[in-house]
């Protein structure tokens, strides 16, 4: 691991896409990292190398290519286990994305454990992927979904959480570690400890936290953790579900088919050992292998430094956006309590219009409901604009973004 502040200029050289010009010659200012991050050459090369040199299916054949591919695929699992400090690689299941990881828990653990009148607690800040699977499950089982509210300051209303836990009916808590809209870092240790006092398991949606800060599943002691490769320099199509082994051993399979079996007979099947029991079908081999290169890249930098850089740039962006006349910023105003995400609205400019004006300046931001319509309803807005940062973003880029914001104000006469 390196020391000191990030050498952002050096990092930028590793990302070919950042050299791109857009909109007729403007340098790309990519501020949509909460949606997906760019990929360093090391990741692109790893995928290229696999298809060029050892493309093969895994876990079955005994020829050389298959053994090389299997080893590379399983090496990624080892790296992920270390990255989040899981006890064992058996606890790491590959999925397509965070959404599939949460659905796996809902369909497997949820179907076996949630009964009529049970309650599942989530929050108003959740992404749709941590709402809809629980709606489907609770509707199927006659159970109930409860929401921890979010205050106007962007912090969760923990007294509501306590009230739900005291009902004695809660069977699962499923909470985002970091909001993709507000940036709020939730008090995840308190949430988990309070649930554990009542013997309730906790799923942590780490889609926005694992890419941006050190995350240790043993320290957190959560039962489930879901996240995606593509938000942390890796390829799309690879997600991770961490499950504590005690629970995983009792979970029924999610998808039946090849690779998740040991023996199939006409009317019964013996399932494969962990974690393969949950990885039916040929997986996304190339991209899992690419993910390893992304983890190597992040570990070389060190997640503490990734986090420091984001606090630094977020603080700068919050200060500058807050000075813009007519702007409303959503979420905690203290950069320490939030990830590298700044969501806002300005005057009566619809976020889609703002994003189009930004795009004219080469600035890529996100506009819309960010797959968090429950939160949009709570904030009483149709949509927000969102700038989100990663290791390759600079304060100069924030300045370009602010200039574009001024141009939008000029056009809309605010």
């Amino acid at each position: 691991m390196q020391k000191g502040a990030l050498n952002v200029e050096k990092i930028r050289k590793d990302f070919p896409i950042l050299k791109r010009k857009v909109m007729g010659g403007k340098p790309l200012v990519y501020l949509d990292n909460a949606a997906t991050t760019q990929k360093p050459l090391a990741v692109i090369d790893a995928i290229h190398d696999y298809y060029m040199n050892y493309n093969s299916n895994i876990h079955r054949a005994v020829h050389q290519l298959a053994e090389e591919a299997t080893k590379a695929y399983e090496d990624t699992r080892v790296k992920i286990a270390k990255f989040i400090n899981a006890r064992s690689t058996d606890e790491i299941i590959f999925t397509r994305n965070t959404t599939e990881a949460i659905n796996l828990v809902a369909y497997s653990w949820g179907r076996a454990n949630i009964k009529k009148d049970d309650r599942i607690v989530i929050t108003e800040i959740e992404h749709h992927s941590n709402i809809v699977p629980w709606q489907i499950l609770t509707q199927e089982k006659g159970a109930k979904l409860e929401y921890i509210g979010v205050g106007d300051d962007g912090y969760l209303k923990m007294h509501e959480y306590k009230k739900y836990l005291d009902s004695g009916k809660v069977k699962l808590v499923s909470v985002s570690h970091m909001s993709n809209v507000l940036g709020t870092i939730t008090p995840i240790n308190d949430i988990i400890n309070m649930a554990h006092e009542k013997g309730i398991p906790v799923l942590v949606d780490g889609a926005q936290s694992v890419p941006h800060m050190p995350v240790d599943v043993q320290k957190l002691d959560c039962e489930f953790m879901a996240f995606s490769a593509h938000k942390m320099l890796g390829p799309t199509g690879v997600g991770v579900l961490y499950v504590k082994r005690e629970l995983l051993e009792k979970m029924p399979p999610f998808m039946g088919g090849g690779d998740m079996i040991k023996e199939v007979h006409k009317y019964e099947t013996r399932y494969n050992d962990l974690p393969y029991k949950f990885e039916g079908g040929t997986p996304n081999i190339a991209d899992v292998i690419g993910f390893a290169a992304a983890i190597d890249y992040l570990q070389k930098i060190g997640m503490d430094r990734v986090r420091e850089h984001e606090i630094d740039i977020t603080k700068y962006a919050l200060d500058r956006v807050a000075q813009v006349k007519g702007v409303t910023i959503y979420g905690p105003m203290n950069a320490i309590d939030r990830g590298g995400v700044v969501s806002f609205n300005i005057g009566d400019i619809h976020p889609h219009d703002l994003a189009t004006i930004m795009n004219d300046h080469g600035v890529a931001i996100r506009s819309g409901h960010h797959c968090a319509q429950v939160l949009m309803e709570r904030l009483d807005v149709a949509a927000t604009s969102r700038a989100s940062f990663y290791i390759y973003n600079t304060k100069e880029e924030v300045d370009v973004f602010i200039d574009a914001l001024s141009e939008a104000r000029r056009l809309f006469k605010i």
Partner: protein
Amino acid sequence: MSDDIYREIILDHYRNPRNKGKIQNADVSIHDSNPLCGDEIDIHLKVDGDKIKDIKFEGRGCAISQASASMLTEMVMNKQLASVKDLTKDDILENIGLMNLGPARIKCALLSLKVLKLGMVKYYADRDPASAKKLQDDTRTL
């Protein structure tokens, strides 16, 4: 490479497996398989005190998996469970003389050890839960 693997002794154990069959009133019987090539092994144990008094296996699969099982039964017959408990992956590979198997084929060679350890997990489950847990963990690294 293949000359090394399919030496006479491996083929001999494959075609003339030792200790193959069932044990009437076995103390433990256990089954597992390797999804790679569908290798299957059942191991039956008769335990006397802390000693393996009899061991037999049934199975089908590749030459490596079946020869390894046959050689394992010879290796542990009449041994103390305490010593069998600590057998490692390298002990087996040395015993069958195949130290350089690739990651796929090594599973074939170790299947019988895994089944034996799982059998001992079952045997120890009530008698010595700590040993059962350790053995269970051992099987995960095979």
